[in-house]
């Protein structure tokens, strides 16, 4: 099992969700986060006072998937989330040791 963590542009969330659904993935956890990589934020001006906003709003998706589907899912996310501009985000893939469904104590891939 792998955990895919994708940090994407907030406005791409619906596209990514749709794309994942179309390949049969409909379980995920998302969080609204703030951060930046090379994008470096923007400038805001209020009555002449300038503020540099470097932590930008992003959405983080987390999903745990069977190892053999990892590449397919990662490619799906990339295709749906990419605009080609700086700030599109990143994807990280981790090993997952165990998955447990709290309701009935299912273990392993059947729990994800």
């Amino acid at each position: 099992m792998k955990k895919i963590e994708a940090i994407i542009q907030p406005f791409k969330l619906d596209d990514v969700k749709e794309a994942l659904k179309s390949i049969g993935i409909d379980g995920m956890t998302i969080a609204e986060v703030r951060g930046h990589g090379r994008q470096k934020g923007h400038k805001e001006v209020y009555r002449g006072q300038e503020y540099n906003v470097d932590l930008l709003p992003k959405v983080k998706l987390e999903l745990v998937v069977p190892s053999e589907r990892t590449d397919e899912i990662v490619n799906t996310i990339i295709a749906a989330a990419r605009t080609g501009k700086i700030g599109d985000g990143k994807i990280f893939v981790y090993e997952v040791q165990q998955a447990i469904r709290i309701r009935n104590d299912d273990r392993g891939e059947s729990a994800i």
Partner: protein
Amino acid sequence: MNLLTRIGPLALLAAPASVWAQAAPDINAKLAALEAATKSAQTAGDNAWMLVSSALVLMMTAPGLALFYGGLVRRKNVLSTMMHSFILMAVVTVIWAVAGYSLAFGGSSPYFGNFQFAFLDGVGATPNADYAGTIPHATFMVYQLMFAIITPALISGAFAERMKFSAMLLFTVLWTFVVYFPMAHMVWGKGGLLNAFSGGRIPCFDFAGGTVVHITSGVSALVCAIYLGKRVGFPSGAMKPHNLVISTIGAGMLWVGWFGFNAGSALAANGLATSAFVATHFGAAAATLAWMAVEWVDAGKPSVLGAISGCVAGLVAITPASGFVKPFPAMAIGICAGVLCYFMVTRVKRRFGYDDALDAFGVHGAGGTLGALLTGIFATSAINDGLKNAAGKVQPLGLVDGNGGQILNQFGGVAIAWGLAIVGTLAILKIVDVTVGLRVTKEQESDGLDLSMHNEEGYIFES
């Protein structure tokens, strides 16, 4: 039948003598009744407009100013800032009933009122011809109250995010007695030193409160900002307005409410009220565009905060002039206000480094002073024929009427308003400082005043 035809003409011939004998008192009574009906109709019209105006001016404080200022502070201070406006609707009202109205409008001395109307004694349905002969005295009283409420609320923009609530209450109560009531009496009270329409020695034109409301509050705001010192983290830290949406709603309400403020100052539903309404609207529109244009050129983009700030600056500057100027001079005043206030808040504030948090001085102090002075230029008897000499001849008003000396009178009014605001506010701040203390602690300030002063939060998303 025969009898009737014979008596008829006789009766007619006999009639005139008896009819005319009774006619004189009959017609007189009818005329008196007609006069009373006309007066009552005028009172009905004027009173309806003045009650609506009173409500409009109250709406300027809350929700208008409360939303405008509330959106400009950080999220942790939104409630405390809105409370500064809201609580004054209660505090000043009680003071006004006990003594405030009387100290502003009682008697006929040049500087202060007296206690003749204390506890609203004698303030009822009968008009007070000294001020407004066609509306109930109580309507005039409650209308003026709304001005006394918003004026100290405007100051709160300068000490937002760092003044103790108890200190703010004590400061405001003292401020109304020391600064507002005397200033209102001098400019609008019978026999007031600056009251051009009541034999004042320095005849100053202030239709709706350029000196009384905006200079006193704006200059006091500057004194507060300097005396209290900067907010922790100013100017390097992030102090972005937390919600310009509610600020924009608030500014819109101020614009609408201002019609009650300025057009209502005619104290009747007459042509002068319309004239003030029109001047107010045109001044606000021109100032909005002027601020936006300058900012677009100077900073690269036209901001929403800039547009709404320009609107308020224009409304402030047109206030003293509104019942004296034609529409195009009103727009000229608006343009000057938009440009001046833009540079006040973006350049002058930074140059001198005072933390006038929400720019109460930059907008109300500067805009009010500009408007008061420009009134001396653009005021014309073509709009306001209320100033007459002993022979009843209408007098010229401002420079455009050929009365250049009026500018000096306006300077006099401005100087007295500045002086009273500086001295009065300094003295009050000192008193509050040594009694209850002015500022919250550093921890309270970093927690936010909503939590540290009121045990609340403005926005709770979990529940």
